[in-house]
């Protein structure tokens, strides 16, 4: 009891208000790993973009000292990414494809997630398993399946011609932007459904019922209550799905193989191993990195500030 119990040890009490060295020790391996294998290679990219090129083989020669950096390769790329430049169309195309694909993903994922989260009742488990299934199926396999179906004599054309009723001979696999966008949607929509499901699952039913009780019909209560409440979830899900899409190159490669649908990922992929062009690949890497990181920073700042401001 109180008499025999050891007196509270000051070190322990202090230990709970002062940071125990245990936590930094645990976090350190991970931090060091990220610094060495994530940040440092980014510096190598910079060293190559602003570095030299071997005169004969035109392989990149990295320059480590920032004072000796040579901006020629970087300015070469920058001067061509304007709308009239050689790379401008590809960048604009990437932006357009990703935007359209994100909107389509959202339009498909939201109803599905909403249904499974709130309305499916006893089917929820099975439906969820079916929704998660694409994660375990090789992405390549899914794309390959579509390549098969979209071939000129494949099932899509066969079904569309309805056994000879119509004469459908669309060449799906030669440079059709529609096919590439749909390919992106197909590949990335499972990544959007799960976060949406999680967010929608947590919406308080009581608030929604209150809206209906106060006289709003289905549409109004959805538009004016549900949607604003799940806006953070939507933003997070969109970021999670669409930022990785910016680097996609194999969808266009497998479903199209034509310069007409080249995305910035294709630009990177084609020039990385190409003599004299590695620096340009690095420049594109930097540009896409900026395009990815800035929205993330902004998002984290906004959510952090929201946490700060809430009482």
């Amino acid at each position, binding site marked *: 009891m109180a008499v025999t119990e050891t007196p509270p040890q000051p070190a322990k009490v202090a230990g709970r208000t002062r940071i125990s060295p245990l936590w930094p020790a645990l976090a350190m391996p991970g931090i060091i790993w990220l610094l060495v294998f994530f940040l440092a290679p980014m510096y190598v990219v910079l060293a190559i973009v602003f570095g030299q090129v071997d005169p004969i083989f035109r392989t990149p020669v990295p320059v480590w000292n920032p004072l000796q950096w040579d901006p020629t390769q970087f300015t070469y790329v920058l001067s061509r990414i304007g709308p009239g430049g050689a790379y401008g169309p590809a960048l604009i195309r990437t932006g357009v494809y990703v935007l359209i694909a994100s909107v389509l993903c959202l339009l498909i994922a939201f109803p599905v997630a909403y249904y499974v989260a709130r309305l499916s009742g006893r089917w929820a488990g099975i439906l969820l398993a079916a929704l998660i299934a694409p994660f375990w199926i090789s992405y390549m396999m899914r794309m390959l399946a579509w390549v098969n179906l979209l071939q000129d004599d494949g099932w899509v054309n066969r079904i569309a011609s309805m056994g000879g009723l119509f004469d459908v001979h669309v060449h799906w696999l030669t*440079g059709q932007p529609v096919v590439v966008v749909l390919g992106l949607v197909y590949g990335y929509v499972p990544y959007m459904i799960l976060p949406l499901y999680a967010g929608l699952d947590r919406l308080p039913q009581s608030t929604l019922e209150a809206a209906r009780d106060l006289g709003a019909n289905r549409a109004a209560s959805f538009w004016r209550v549900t949607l604003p409440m799940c806006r953070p979830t939507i933003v997070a899900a969109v970021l999670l799905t669409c930022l990785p899409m910016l680097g996609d190159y194999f969808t266009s490669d497998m479903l199209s193989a034509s310069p007409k649908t080249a995305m910035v990922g294709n630009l990177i992929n084609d020039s990385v191993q190409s003599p004299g062009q590695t620096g340009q690949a690095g420049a594109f890497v930097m540009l896409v990195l900026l395009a990815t990181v800035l929205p993330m920073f902004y998002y984290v700042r906004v959510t952090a500030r929201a946490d700060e401001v809430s009482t």
Partner: protein
Amino acid sequence: MPVPNRPGPNRRQFLQRAALLAAGTPALVAFLDACSKGGQSTSAPSLTIASPSSPVKWDIPADNKAIADGLGPEKGGTLQLYSYADYMAPEAVKSFEDKYGVKVQISTFNDTDEALTKIRGGNVDYDIFFPSYDQIGRLVTGGLVRPLNHSYVPNIKNVWPFFANPWYDQEWHYSVPYTVYTTGLSWRTDQVPADIAALKNPYESLWDPAYKNKTAVIDDWHTAMAMVLLKLGITDVNTSSADDLKKVGETLTQLVAATSPKVTITMYSDLPAGQISLSQMWSGDIINAQSYLPEGVNVDILRYWFPADGKGLVDNDLMVSLRGGKNPVLAHLFINHMLEPEVAKQNFSAIGYQPPQVSINPDSLVADGFIPENLKTAIVRPEYFDTGYRILELDPANDTAWHNVWRAFKAGGS
């Protein structure tokens, strides 16, 4: 009352951090410099470009001598080949494996630029590489290939005499020929009713909107752009004229607008599958395409055109022994094995590309039933090598200019 819980850095902290950064950067730089792979920048001042009019005999530097005579094959290792996909008959490989009791592994690349970069990076230990002769200058200058010891390759007598002393590698110090091929156009008569060969400028048919979405060009910058030059009537397929390159760029843009071709190296299976109906093609690919036709489709729908006077693109591929390889003796033995007449013929029927074997008489290939009559134009004759246009290695500045045009084309830009 909202209170921010993280005050910004005050001036002292900011100065501390800036000082830390300034102190740390040179240390980081010195560290990276020390770690950097020193041997990357070449010390050779310039690249010797070989051409039919200025043949080159590569010297053998003192630190890169050929292997000694009479060595036995390495035991227990794996011979590493580095080539295009579907470019080696499995039976030929198997017979070598059985003969010497070793394993052979084939790694593939999609284009020769990427392959050269990977070899130069030094991270790989391939034994045999299958480049085209337009890379031999860089391979030798960069010290990437091993000179051949001729005593291991007596079968050189089986190849066309020209290859014992080719202009790109006199006295065959570093290479032996692998296959010979021409680059022309091929099509399917069931989807292309016109006779492409009878047109005044057959290359023009690739720009014909009637074939929109059903065409393809080869995904190789030099081959595709050379064809565009020939279409424009410019016969210098290694031109360094900025004017010519500009015209090529514009013509390529027109090509995308007119027929939107696929840019690939898999036409040997896409054409028979019906995905494309008209394509720029290597002669070996159209011969190989026969085996990819689905059941029920007759071989005689395939056609190939190459200028009858031999004034088109003619090339050959090589076998070289890479310095980074761990099995030099086996490499020599494999090269010799592939020059064996029966093995070469076996390879021919498996991959479709013709080996320059003396024992294969181009005139009798059709009569012997080896090649169907409708593909007779795909047979490579020694005379083509006298009149044809050769794709040469380009000097670095010209190489850059060409690659820039190609890069703009592949980006779908102007």
